[in-house]
């Protein structure tokens, strides 16, 4: 019980550091310090979580840490300065798939009620969209795939059908959580939706899309937080989700584009041909 209190108080401290960190990141004089402040918040949240009694086995955690740490550090150090935006997209994609996996794993945790099921499906859905959407954004910016907008006939109808499909199978899964097939279909369709949302957008608009996907990855973390009943995931996820939307809007304004234009580019048949 005491440990729970300590963990939750540390989460409050971490949340405060995230808030100050974000605030400081918005001004040139304090930006670098702000990033450090937010990193300290992250360190506190991670270390204190490791001390929690629900964690019994550290072997696999260590494996994940070492793998992820090496890959993350090597990539972050070696990447050229000019390819920073696509790196952000790539890292963002990893965050998205992590939220998807956390939501999925929560299915096998204790106490799954109707509410948890809804939030689990949400974290899988948003996480999946974030993952593939970010990968496509990365591919476009790094010119691994064509950067121009890819539009085809019936794209709008296809996307609407896709969304209906996701809703149908999400509901089916919610009603029959023991049928894993429905879950796999939801995962596959979410992944497809992420691709469909980003391919019609041109290379020049990519930074705005990455910012939007960054907001999505925050929402995915937030949904995962509801799925596993973790306050710091909810708070930090919602902070990133909300500030990401605002930042997206600011970036749109700077580029003279409307947010809805970027958001629904796959739905309104804007074949700019560019």
């Amino acid at each position, binding site marked *: 019980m005491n440990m729970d209190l300590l963990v939750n108080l540390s989460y409050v401290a971490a949340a405060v550091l995230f808030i100050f960190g974000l605030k400081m990141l918005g001004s040139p004089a304090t930006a670098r310090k702000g990033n450090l402040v937010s990193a300290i918040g992250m360190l506190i949240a991670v270390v204190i*979580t490791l001390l929690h009694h629900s964690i019994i086995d550290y072997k696999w955690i260590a494996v994940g840490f070492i793998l992820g740490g090496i890959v993350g550090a090597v990539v972050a150090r070696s990447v050229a300065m000019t390819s920073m935006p696509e790196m952000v997209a790539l890292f963002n994609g990893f965050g998205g798939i992590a939220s998807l*996996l956390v939501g999925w794993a929560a299915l096998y945790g204790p106490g799954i009620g109707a509410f948890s099921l809804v939030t689990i499906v949400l974290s899988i859905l948003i996480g999946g969209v974030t993952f593939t959407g970010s990968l496509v954004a990365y591919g476009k910016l790094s010119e691994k795939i064509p950067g121009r907008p890819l539009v085809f006939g019936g794209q709008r109808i296809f996307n609407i059908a896709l969304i209906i499909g996701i809703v149908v199978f999400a509901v089916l899964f919610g009603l029959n959580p023991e049928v894993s097939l429905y879950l796999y279909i939801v995962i596959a369709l979410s992944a497809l939706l992420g691709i469909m949302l980003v391919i019609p957008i041109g290379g020049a608009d990519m930074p705005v899309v990455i910012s939007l996907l960054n907001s999505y990855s925050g929402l995915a973390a937030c949904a995962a937080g509801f799925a596993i009943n973790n306050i710091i995931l909810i708070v930090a996820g919602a902070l990133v989700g909300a500030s990401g939307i605002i930042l997206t809007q600011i970036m749109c304004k700077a580029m003279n584009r409307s947010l809805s234009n970027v958001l629904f580019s796959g739905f309104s048949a804007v074949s700019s041909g560019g």
Partner: protein
Amino acid sequence: MDIVFLAFILVLSIFLGFELINKVPATLHTPLMSGSNAISGITLVGALTSAGAEHTVLATVLGTLAVAMATINVIGGYMVTDRMLAMFKKKEGASK
């Protein structure tokens, strides 16, 4: 935990997130995006619980993968942001 309580926290955090970001100079757009992207790696905390709680084998596998992916997001995100911001500082110093 109480759903109403969690919903309260959610709503307040969203409002705070909206309020935090205003009048960001254009040069800071990418670093800010990158920095907040690193924060969204907070899902790592959730991944730790899944990987270490020994619920089922599948949950452990999913959790371990999630820890690896989220760690890439966190470590990579903070390091890349720092590199970007360090570059800004150098540029400013040079122009002075």
